[in-house]
């Protein structure tokens, strides 16, 4: 019975022709897994390890290349006695390798150099040409590398045991029938030649955002089907609101963000410029996720700040200031019941949506309370003409803004840093943190708190603080993507609406008057899912970014007592706060 069981096992042989025997040795390096392999397969032939070697085998791994008549004979013998022949390593697959360098010299020359007139017997005399295995026999499979990584050998052994794969072959020539130009835009561009028509971007644009700026064009007729805007127009001339969700969902990288790196480098190189970085902490979350060994977000942020200073930024200011300026202002107006402040101006993409799709609602938007606009009017005043501003944000819609000199996404920031020779992980964390110039003194820590989206929640806390009354908040999920929050204050009731699926705005267009405050969040997961982040289609990754910011906020809040917090807000409102309007 045991014998029967043994017969069923796959018989494996590992052979070496002329080579350094590195691949064979590398298999023995699979120390922990070797026992498992030996249990699953029957190793019939492995000269380096065992002395009992026999043919035939089912799978033959052959390393090395054919350099002598003996090698050739052996190879023919192996081919006849195996089912699958797998070329292992660089020598066997592509006839690469150091051994082949001898082809550069004539045979006699090599002889005299190495053997010095000693006559070799026929069988061991080298062949004049060195060739890979597939020159002589059929090779079923190639495993490449010099040396082949151990994991790769393991991967293929298990794969062969499960079900032997088909031959690995080269792809056909590129099918390129139609010739469509790149769709260019201020914020990002689309390369139709890379598109594989998976329709993820079309889906998110039509079914989530409800805009439909892009669609599949030119069906049938032998034309190449691609995704494009209508008439190939640039994005901002069409219905596009520049939210950048298509960038995050594209699996093949057909969309690319406008690159500002060289522009920023020019700004930094000019000695007359006083360069100020406006850093959004949210931008650092995805950088840390993808490119850092650092585990503490607070420390990582400090490292980014010191790296920015290293490459020549004179000041690093937190972009959360802008959110707070706008937030305080809007909270005041909502309390007063201003008509003009009904729609939140946090999100540049949401403003684009109102502008392009619902122009009748523009009267409810106060463009003066746009965060970037508010912050810039303060900073431009304080730093004068020579100051240049670089915004670092995960939001690609800001790329279209005329208020700022350059906008970097997290990806571009990393390029800028690493091409300047700065490694964030090695940089010492900055001791100061964000610069605190031109902002009311004593309130810096609060201004560093990141308002987490949906931002109405932050607004609620402000409203609570301003009114000083016991709040009574009621949250109701009206439908998927729409949430209503009712706040009962001392003498009035405020109704706010949060729309996380912008296409639902169609339904609530008419009822804007009934609400005191409406917020639209186009990106999935808020700013943590912005288009400038590294692309992801996993909600867990987005959630992780949000929890990083949460942790960062808690750290700041835990430093301050509740009393100090309340006092600080009051101070901002009464004296310290300079309203630019």
């Amino acid at each position, binding site marked *: 019975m045991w014998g029967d069981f043994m017969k069923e096992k796959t018989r494996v042989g590992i052979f070496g022709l002329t080579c350094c025997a590195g691949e064979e040795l590398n298999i023995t390096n699979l120390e922990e897994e070797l026992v498992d392999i030996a249990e699953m397969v029957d190793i019939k032939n492995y000269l380096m390890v065992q002395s009992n070697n026999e043919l035939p085998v089912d799978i033959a791994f052959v390393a090395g290349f054919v350099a002598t008549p003996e090698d050739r004979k052996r190879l023919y013998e192996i081919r006849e006695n195996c089912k699958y022949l797998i070329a292992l390593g*660089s020598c066997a*697959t*592509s*006839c*690469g*390798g*150091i051994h*082949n*360098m001898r082809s550069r010299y004539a045979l006699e020359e090599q002889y005299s150099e190495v053997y010095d007139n000693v006559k070799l017997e026929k069988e061991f005399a080298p062949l004049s*040409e*060195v060739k*890979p295995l597939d020159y002589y026999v059929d090779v079923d*499979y190639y495993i*490449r*590398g*010099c040396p082949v*990584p151990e994991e790769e050998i393991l991967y293929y052994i298990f794969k062969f045991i499960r*079900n032997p*794969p*088909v031959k690995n072959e*080269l*792809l*056909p*020539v*590129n*099918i*390129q029938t139609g010739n469509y130009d790149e769709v260019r835009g201020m914020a990002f561009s689309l*390369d139709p*030649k*890379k598109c*594989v*028509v*998976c*329709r*993820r971007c*079309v*889906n998110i644009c039509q079914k*989530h955002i409800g805009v439909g700026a892009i669609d599949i064009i030119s069906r049938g007729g032998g034309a*190449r089907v691609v995704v494009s805007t209508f008439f190939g127009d640039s994005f901002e001339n069409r219905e596009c609101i520049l939210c950048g969700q298509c*960038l995050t*969902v*594209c*699996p*093949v*990288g057909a969309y*690319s*963000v406008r690159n500002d790196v*060289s522009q920023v480098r020019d700004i930094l190189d000019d000695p007359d410029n006083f360069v100020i970085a406006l850093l959004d902490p949210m931008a650092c979350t995805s950088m840390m996720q993808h490119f850092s060994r650092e585990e503490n977000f607070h420390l990582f942020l400090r490292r980014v700040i010191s790296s920015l200073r290293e490459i020549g930024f004179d000041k690093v200011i937190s972009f959360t200031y802008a959110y707070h300026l706008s937030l305080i202002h809007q909270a005041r107006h909502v309390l007063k019941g201003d008509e003009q402040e009904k729609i939140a101006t946090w999100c540049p993409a949401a403003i684009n949506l109102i502008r392009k799709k619902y122009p009748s609602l523009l009267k409810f938007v106060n463009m003066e309370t746009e965060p970037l606009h508010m912050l810039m009017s303060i900073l431009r005043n304080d730093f004068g003409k020579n100051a240049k501003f670089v915004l670092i944000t995960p939001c690609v819609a800001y790329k279209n803004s005329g208020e700022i000199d350059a906008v970097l996404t997290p*990806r*571009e920031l990393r*390029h*800028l840093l*690493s*091409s300047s020779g700065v490694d964030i992980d090695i940089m010492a964390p900055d001791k100061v943190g964000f610069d605190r110039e031109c902002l009311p003194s004593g309130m810096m820590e609060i201004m560093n708190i990141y308002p987490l989206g949906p931002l109405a929640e932050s607004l609620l806390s402000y409203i609570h603080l301003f009114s000083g009354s016991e709040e009574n908040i009621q949250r109701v999920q009206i439908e998927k993507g729409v949430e209503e929050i009712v706040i009962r204050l001392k003498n009035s009731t405020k109704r706010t609406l949060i729309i996380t699926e912008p296409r639902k705005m169609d339904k609530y267009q008419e009822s804007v008057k009934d609400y005191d405050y409406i917020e639209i969040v186009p990106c*999935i997961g808020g700013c943590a*899912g912005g288009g400038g982040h590294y*692309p992801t*289609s*996993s*909600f867990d990754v987005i959630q992780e970014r949000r929890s990083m910011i949460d942790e960062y906020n808690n750290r700041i809040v835990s430093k301050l007592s509740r009393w100090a917090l309340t006092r600080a807000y009051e101070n901002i409102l009464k004296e310290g706060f300079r309203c630019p309007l």
Partner: protein
Amino acid sequence: MSSIRKVRVKIDDLEVLADPEEKVLDVCRRLGIHIPTLCYNPLLKEERPGSCRLCMVAIGKGEKVYYREACKTPVRSGLEVYTNTPDVHSLRRDIVEFLLARHRRNCWDCPISGNCPFVELCRDYDVEGLTVCAECPLQGEECLLSRGEICLGPLTYFGCGASCTKQGHYCFGCRGLVPHEDIIKSAVEVYKSKGIDLQKVVERMELFSYSSGVIEKFCEIAGVRR
């Protein structure tokens, strides 16, 4: 609690109970059976374009077998699904080939290189024709070619995880050079655009691929002598 009657389906000879509203893909994901997807977006679970066709599964057995996309096929009582038969495998392999054939492979300046879904698909379904650049996370100004290094990334077979370039060292081309004309053409283009001496590229290619035939093709396209 739920009044919906569950249906009994068979997935890879495994009998399971499923909601009649569920699709085959959801049941497989729940069971931990791997089915490749490309157009399916986990962020928008309800909207399934079903356009990439990578999630093809076999329904039925023997002569009555037919193939359907798992993301769109609803479960029904008595459904027999096979997710990994040799036929399904080769069908998916053809799909990967055709998807990749229409995709311009200028991986050195692709925003998602290092995170490309094609790398995994090509590895699982034994399709060649991608280069090390597809796995290399360096791009734009970080790219070793932009720094003037003679890297063989745009010409070399993928699969190593770009272990050298990740450490900041140029690619030696140890896995062999892709003999595909399109790839050689685009590699010549990128070397020219980055201002790299093509003669030096040929010298470097000789280390691991002295007589593989790619060098002759490269010289012919680039217009340099060996």
